[in-house]
């Protein structure tokens, strides 16, 4: 919304020494966000009134003329002009060199200079309205038509900004910050805020005395839930003409295009006090009766452009005896237009229910200046403000007009809210004592009536704040705090009571796991969207029967919500393969599936939501990345200080390779899978020329230890004896069997290497293992060591058929 400070100053006398920027700043801190401060006169610099003294033909151009123009300087200037409506003695708008104009009304402003046009000097421009920001005042008829100031009280050299009331500052207010303040959708409401902020008096709005004996206009409200009040005034002697320049100027500055005096008056009133009005040509109202009712089945509203809109029975319409004339509070139809033959009007000043306007407006996807205001909830008393101001203006602009009939049908009145506030409440919540006089000053300026009795304030909330905005004492406290400015309250330290330390083991575990993966194992963390492209879900072979869908997804193929992080990981892998051959990623987020989960209350049944952890290692050597990923899982419990997880081959996940997979288990329950990505999934998801080791775990199954958990063992007094053994075994023999067979005989056994090759017979493999033996009592001799090793080899032979490999 745009606010003219000139109009504000009509309602409140602002302190003299204030800059416009300061006003904007104070309002931003206390009331609404001012996004921009525009001095509307600036763009008119060096644009003045000129009088054409003489017109000569241009020797080199048929369409151009040479004008000698008086611009109020000692000497007239010469301007070459192609205007079609030039005549000697004409008052025109001249842009002198240095002025900035919009060339032909298009694009960014450009600076006018002193030039030669076809060989003739031209010291400026005689302008068309679109070139000098005056289209609102002079809707140009043709491209070459320049502004003719006939009828204006002006003399050469007068600045155009003065002539058109443009010496003003316009504040641009963020409409979002106004959404909860129906009282601020007019200048008067803003003026009231400023009167509270600067402690200066707010002037009263005009009061129009209506003749009490006027005949009644026939108005009928059929649905009093939707229409709270309807005032109709029939006025003769009102017709289509231009409104005065001061009114056009104000409307133009606040973004309303001037149309004719009648429409301009209704718009002006809406901008001034925030009350929408409507004027019908009185002859268009058949039967001299206005009916406010719901639309009939299949009824239509004919618009000015002869199109029509289909109404529903929920839509409130303003009708005459026969037809709908307007969609209540939203827009008019053809029947309400003011035309050249208009001789009198019926003025509507009404109040409609906010919900009704919002619903209907939504149905027609239409917001108008009127509907934006109504849907915020305007008090019914505002009708009086609007009516009084409108009648004043009509009397001023149409001095011969006459009010013929009048009606005020008023089924529902906005009641003032009444609120009690204990003084102690204010002191505590504000964090400092505000003097009673200050509180009274602020609240009175905002329109509250306030009384104080025995440590308690009682306030009567003004009607314009009683439509939902101010209902409880906290709202009143908020008004006091903001007018004082939140910034004027010093930050108060918060006291703390020591009962227990913050004890959140699962929060810590999540962090340990993420840091383990990122910092120890070299993974990069990613975040993915909860909605997943269907093709990735399908290629990962995820069962979609339990998946949830969005009612209005971001795109048709993004309807499914993830039940696994694997599809998102596939997408991330395939994208990153464009730039990297080898990388490691992990994603730790929630997945969802249909189910019954009630985290907070019994009536709320949510789907099942679990934290999943998925990681991938991408690289060429499938075995290598598989064992690397296996190492990441195997070491996780130890490094992250949580209960053990195990790896066993039980059941293949859909995405896993037919051979290379292991399930991740905890207490014999499968909680995840580790494996190589299958050839099929890689083909389907276009992951080429590489391999992927993947794991996915239900992280909610991890149980954190309550503290760092390590086990201490006394250091051996003598060094361990280490020996590497290379043995030949059958392909079928698993490392696990080898390890288990000798585990009890040695201190430690470690896998070193596996080898298949030329020197190894078909069907066999060579395994190198390192065994560590404890020295018992004294250092063993080499004979003793050999004996031990031979024993170990014998066991290996017996249990695994292993033979020592000849070097």
């Amino acid at each position: 919304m745009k606010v003219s400070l000139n109009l504000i100053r009509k309602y409140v006398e602002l302190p003299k020494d204030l800059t416009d920027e300061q006003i904007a700043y104070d309002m931003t801190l206390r009331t609404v966000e001012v996004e921009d401060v525009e001095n509307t006169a600036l763009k008119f610099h060096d644009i003045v009134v000129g009088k054409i003294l003489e017109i000569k033909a241009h020797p080199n151009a048929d369409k151009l003329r040479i004008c000698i123009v008086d611009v109020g300087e000692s000497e007239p200037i010469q301007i070459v002009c192609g205007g079609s409506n030039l005549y000697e003695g004409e008052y025109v708008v001249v842009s002198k060199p240095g002025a900035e104009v919009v060339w032909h009304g298009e694009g960014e402003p450009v600076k006018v200079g002193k030039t030669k046009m076809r060989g003739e000097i031209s010291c400026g421009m005689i302008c068309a309205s679109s070139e000098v920001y005056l289209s609102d005042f002079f809707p140009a008829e043709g491209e070459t038509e320049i502004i003719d100031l006939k009828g204006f009280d002006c003399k050469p050299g007068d600045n155009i900004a003065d002539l058109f009331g443009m010496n003003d500052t316009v504040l641009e207010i963020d409409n979002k910050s106004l959404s909860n303040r129906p009282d601020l959708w007019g200048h008067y409401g803003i003026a009231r805020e400023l009167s509270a902020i600067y402690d200066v008096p707010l002037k009263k709005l005009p009061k129009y005395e209506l003749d009490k004996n006027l005949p009644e206009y026939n108005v009928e409200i059929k649905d009093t839930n939707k229409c709270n009040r309807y005032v109709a005034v029939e006025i003769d002697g009102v017709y289509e003409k231009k409104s005065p320049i001061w009114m056009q100027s104000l409307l133009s500055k606040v973004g309303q295009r001037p149309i004719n005096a009648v429409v301009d008056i209704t718009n002006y009133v809406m901008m001034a006090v925030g009350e929408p009005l409507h004027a019908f040509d009185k002859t268009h109202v058949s039967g001299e009766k206005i009916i406010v009712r719901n639309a009939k089945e299949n009824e239509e509203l004919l618009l000015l452009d002869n199109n029509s809109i289909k109404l529903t029975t929920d839509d409130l319409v303003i009708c005459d005896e026969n037809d709908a004339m307007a969609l209540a509070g939203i827009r008019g139809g053809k029947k309400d237009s003011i035309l050249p033959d208009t001789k009198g009007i019926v003025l509507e000043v009404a109040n409609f229910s906010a919900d009704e306007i919002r619903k209907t407006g939504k149905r027609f996807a239409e917001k108008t200046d009127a509907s934006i205001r109504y849907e915020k909830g305007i008090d019914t008393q505002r009708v009086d403000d609007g009516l009084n101001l409108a009648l004043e203006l009509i009397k001023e602009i149409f001095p011969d007009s006459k009010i013929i009939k009048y009606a005020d049908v008023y089924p529902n009145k906005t009641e003032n809210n009444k609120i009690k506030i204990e003084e102690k409440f204010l002191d505590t919540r504000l964090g400092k004592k505000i003097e009673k006089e200050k509180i009274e000053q602020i609240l009175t300026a905002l329109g509250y009536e306030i009384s104080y009795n025995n440590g308690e304030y009682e306030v009567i909330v003004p009607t314009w704040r009683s439509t939902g905005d101010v209902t409880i004492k906290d709202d009143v406290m908020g008004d006091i705090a903001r007018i004082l400015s939140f910034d004027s309250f010093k930050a108060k330290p918060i006291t703390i009571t020591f009962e227990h330390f913050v004890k959140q083991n699962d929060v810590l575990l999540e962090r340990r796991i993420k840091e383990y993966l990122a910092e120890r194992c070299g993974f990069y963390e990613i975040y993915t969207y909860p909605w997943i492209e269907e093709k990735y879900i399908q290629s990962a072979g995820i069962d979609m029967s339990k998946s949830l869908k969005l009612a209005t997804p971001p795109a048709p193929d993004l309807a499914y919500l993830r039940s696994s992080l694997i599809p998102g990981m596939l997408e991330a892998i395939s994208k990153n393969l464009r730039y990297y051959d080898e990388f490691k990623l992990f994603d730790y987020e929630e997945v969802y599936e249909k189910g019954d989960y009630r985290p907070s209350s019994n009536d709320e049944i949510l789907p099942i939501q679990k934290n999943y952890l998925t990681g991938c290692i991408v690289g060429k050597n499938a075995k290598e990345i598989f064992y690397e990923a296996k190492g990441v899982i195997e070491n996780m419990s130890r490094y992250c200080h949580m209960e053990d997880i195990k790896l066993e081959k039980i059941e293949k996940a859909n995405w896993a390779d037919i051979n290379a997979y292991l399930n991740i288990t905890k207490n014999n329950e499968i909680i995840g899978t580790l494996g190589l990505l299958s050839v099929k999934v890689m083909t389907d998801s276009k992951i080429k020329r590489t391999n992927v080791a993947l794991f996915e775990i239900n992280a909610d199954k991890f149980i954190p230890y309550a503290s760092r958990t390590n086990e201490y063992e006394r250091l051996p007094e003598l060094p361990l004896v280490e020996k590497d053994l290379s043995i030949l075994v059958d392909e079928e023999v698993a490392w696990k069997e080898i390890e288990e067979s000798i585990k009890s005989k040695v201190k430690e056994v470690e896998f070193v290497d596996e080898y298949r090759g030329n020197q190894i017979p078909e069907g066999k493999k060579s395994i190198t293992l390192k065994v560590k033996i404890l020295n018992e009592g004294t250092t063993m001799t080499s004979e003793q060591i050999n004996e031990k090793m031979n024993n170990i080899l014998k066991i290996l032979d017996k249990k695994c058929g292993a033979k020592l490999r000849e070097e």
Partner: protein
Amino acid sequence: MKEKLEQIKTNGLEKIENVKTIAELEEVRKELTGKKSELSEVLKSMKSLSPEEKKTIGMLATEIKKSFENKLQLKEEEIISSMSVLEEPIDLTLPGKKVSGGALHPITQMKYDLNDAFLSLGFEVYSEDDISSEKYAFDNLNFAKNHPARQSMDTYWIEGTEEKEGAERLCLRPHLTGGSVRYLQKHGAPARFVYPGEVYRNETTDARHERAFFQYEALIVDKDISFSSGMVMIQTILEKVFGRKIKTRMREGFFPFTEPGYEIDMECLVCGGKGCKVCNHNGWIEVMPGGVIHPNVLKSAGLDPEIWTGFYINIGLDRLVMMRYGVDDVRLFHSADLRFLKQFK
């Protein structure tokens, strides 16, 4: 003979002086002090001398040997202290070996930094699930029945529930605030906790707008506290993020779940508050909303607003990371693009 010895001494010391390496030194040591050295030869030929002479020459010879040994030792020390372990030259400008390792997502990094700060103030960390209901996302938070955010143009409703109401109408949470009521219902008051998380809004995306983004919310509920205490939380966040105190201002703002509500602006760090393109020429940048918890929200949480009060602050993590590092496209956070992620350690 004496002259010969003097000659040996002079020659010997000179030889030692000219030695360059340890190997040469050992060579010279052998030559000068070994069994086959000239000195030994001289001593061997002493038999023919008188006992008097033997004594003089012997002493002289011993002295020369000693002086050789001293000189050798000095030389050895000299050589060792000027020796390098390297046999070849070294290019000190070659890069050092890369430290391998991944990284947490920049949003997680920011989240953990803030968690640490709030933990030091005694806050707990709470997290709500992604999918919530209209009851918790809107009703409990005092959103008007017809609030536009409840529409599917704004919120992602779950298929099959979009026409239902309240607890039965499910959505991807549009903000974190609903989690505050869940926590308070479970743990009661007093309470102080932060609840970071991801939220979802039906939006058209561009470099500044996302459908999924991250928020960080902090809440205190206690007795008899004033709204201005909320400033402590604001200062904590900004100081932790930017490493120094940041100038802020609070101004009027409206949110259904607060009364009063405020917007918090921080001084524009690009221009230092003078006004520039980044801050739209007013010197301030909007960073977070906050406010006193609306009594209706406390009631939803089962708390008596006559006894309890408190305040929220909520900050957009994406925005904060973007400001901190000058990231110019919010969609990068969900891109999983390693070229982006590798820049944050």
